């Protein structure tokens, strides 16, 4: 699992990436009440808006960690947005992307790096 400084996580298997927001981000946002998911087929560059996660009081943007095309979105989040608070790095994945360039993952922080970076900021 790799991490961005915008608190997205990403895992890859056979050229398909799964991404969501980290437990740290979910904790900071508080109770999630609504998730706006991307449309399937949407093409993204790193840093493009991928989704919007809404807490009671505010909306937060989720960004694409790497370049890719949206293959699949997590329909469970439409019915159970609170899943993000319960299992943000597992069942509450947000989207699956077909990657244009798998090597972009290598540039991202690993778990130890992300945890250390959280400590320092």
């Amino acid at each position, binding site marked *: 699992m790799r991490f961005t400084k915008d608190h997205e996580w990403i895992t890859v298997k056979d050229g398909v990436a799964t991404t969501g927001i980290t437990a740290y981000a979910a904790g900071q946002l508080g*109770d999630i009440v*609504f998730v706006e998911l991307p449309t399937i087929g949407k093409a993204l560059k790193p840093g493009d808006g991928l989704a*919007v996660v*809404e807490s*009671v009081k505010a*909306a937060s943007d989720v960004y694409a960690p790497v370049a890719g095309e949206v293959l699949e979105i997590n329909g469970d989040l439409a019915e159970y947005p609170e899943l993000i608070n319960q299992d943000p790095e597992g069942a509450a994945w947000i989207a699956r992307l077909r990657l244009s360039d798998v090597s972009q993952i290598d540039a991202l922080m690993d778990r130890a790096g992300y945890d250390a970076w959280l400590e320092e900021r």
Partner: protein
Amino acid sequence: MTVRPLMRTPLHAANAALHARFTAFAGHDMPLHYDQGILAEHRWTRSHAGLFDISHMGVAVLTLNRPTGDPVADDLAVATALEALVPGDLRGLSRGRQRYTMLLNGAGGVIDDLMVVRVGPPGSLHLVVNASAKARDYALIGRTLAGVASLTPLTDQVLLALQGPEAAGALGLILPQATTLAFMDAGFQRFGPAQLLISRSGYTGEDGFEILAPASVAGALWAQLLDDPRVKPIGLGARDSLRLEAGLPLYGQDLDESVSPVEAGLRFVVSASRLHAGDMPGADRLKRELAEGPRRVRVGLRVHGAPARADAPITSGGQIIGRVTSGAFSPTLGAPIALGFVPPDLATPGVELSVLVRERPQPATVVPLPFVPHRYVRQA
């Protein structure tokens, strides 16, 4: 550049000990929520009793400079003095009662909304104003009433709110006399060595109390209330979602200096007899709005889709016709709700409009206020 540190309430350490997540609000370091989180705190308040530290608000006492010593005359005089700034009937405010009113500018726009309480020595009134506006309010009142009455902001006090269906039960164990208060009654009650000012009122739509206490007993009062299993600490996050469900306006969002009480749907604050006499700021505009209708009206909206937030445009037939002033997810209704201004002819419940969220239109239906029924105890 000097950065002024946030002000802390006397209960800051107690809030920190309860793992409050703090947020900056009106220059104060306030609990946004505690361990439960906003949704759970909101639901707890509607089903049990929520305890809020709202000490950031402004509490001040207005007193006559030259009381005559005749209680009736002095009460009349201080009320008359403050009526220069408000549309309400303060002269008729009885001892032991509180009234919701507004400071209006010369154009009939709202400078702040506040509670005026008739308790304490004759010739005095307690005022409770919004944290965000208190400096401006105090300056305005001081200037306008100069020579007749003086305003003394209270310091070293805490203001607590205990709200919810179990609030009376919990408070009654500590302050038995409190439960004899009916909605909008107020009075002093003893707690240990101190006098507390208690009113039966709040900002959630639930039955509840607001309690002004000296800082010296604040810790003990806070702890005793939280000892009751029916009571949990609640932050400003849930305070906002609760008042929104109750259809109550937030100054700075739903009310500002361009908004009149009639536009805000709060015409009950305008005394008919005083308006008839032209005896209030903005009388001309208020008379016209009451006779012909205002240009815009505050309504409640049930939004279908993503929550609409403050400043989201409201459209009808593809045209922008209004603006959301407050919006959030309603835990009780399980859906987004919003307050906003629309033209009067679109202000009827059932009218279908749209709200632009991230530039995309979402359906929104006009619904009656409040979104969640009030449960005030009007007879104790």
